[in-house]
């Protein structure tokens, strides 16, 4: 499959990369960041982003079992700790905005596990992967081209 267009304004790419870097740095948990980015990319069906973040997660030492079961994390809850589960639930709620608001219980559970600063950056990270998903799916950028 070829891309519809590879064109992405250089400044837009730079701005989004800066946003990613700021959110990741503030969250300070690279493994969690990859789980969040993989889950959002699953929901948004972004092949390019899945390929990229699965590669990065493995490079960060993430295991195949946790990666493989991530799409069904609620049914495999003992593989993920409470903080990870809260972040994944927030990821899902923020990614599927079109079906409703971010529920109070989801937000509040995240606020139990993340302080305000961490939470603001987690919200930023979920937003930024949603942005990359939109840019890649819209332009149909094919997967497989990413090397860490």
């Amino acid at each position, binding site marked *: 499959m070829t891309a519809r267009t590879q*064109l992405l304004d250089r*400044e837009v790419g730079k*701005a989004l990369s800066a946003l990613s870097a700021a*959110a990741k740095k503030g969250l300070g948990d690279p493994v969690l960041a990859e789980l969040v980015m993989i889950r959002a990319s699953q929901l948004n069906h972004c092949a390019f982003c899945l390929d990229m973040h699965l590669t990065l997660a493995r490079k960060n030492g993430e295991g195949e079992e946790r990666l493989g079961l991530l799409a069904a994390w609620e049914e495999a809850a003992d593989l993920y700790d409470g903080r990870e589960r809260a972040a994944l639930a927030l990821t899902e709620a923020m990614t599927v905005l079109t079906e409703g608001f971010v529920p109070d219980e989801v937000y509040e559970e995240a606020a139990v596990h993340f302080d305000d*600063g961490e939470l603001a950056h987690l919200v930023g990270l979920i937003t930024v992967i949603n*942005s990359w998903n*939109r840019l890649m*799916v*819209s*332009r149909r950028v094919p997967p497989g081209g990413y090397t860490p």
Partner: protein
Amino acid sequence: MTTPTDDTKTTDYAAEVPVRLNWSQHAPEVYKAMIRLETVAKRGLDPALYELVKIRASQINHCAFCLDMHTKDALAAGESVERIVQLAAWEESRHFYTEKELAAIELTEAVTVLTDGFVPDEVYEKAAKHFDEPELAQLIAAITTINAWNRFGVTCRMTPGHYTPGGHA
């Protein structure tokens, strides 16, 4: 409370819900990067078209704060009340919009609702007919950017009703 009209003294409106998180204060460098993204994503796009895109995405994502901001900005920039009101039902009110605007609105919906499937070929191709490649790249970036603002607005429950047109410029 400054919303919604002059009759606030006599009408018993529901209480305003407080903001969940002042994200821009807790992540100022993330906010700065968002402002930068907004600035570069809209370059080369017709501002009136971009407001329609922002309003439609904010409707689909249910972002009250963003709707408050962008409907006020659109009105202040001379957009008609009719075109704003009809936007939620644009498929039944196509004659309010140009074919180019319709292609952009349709692409906005497809790029906003990714969870239901991919961006259909016919939607992309229609947009590509009306926008040249660099302009289309900017349109996609702009749709992506309002989707990003919507996520901050909804998740942090930013409060609508207090925006003054031109306030984010």
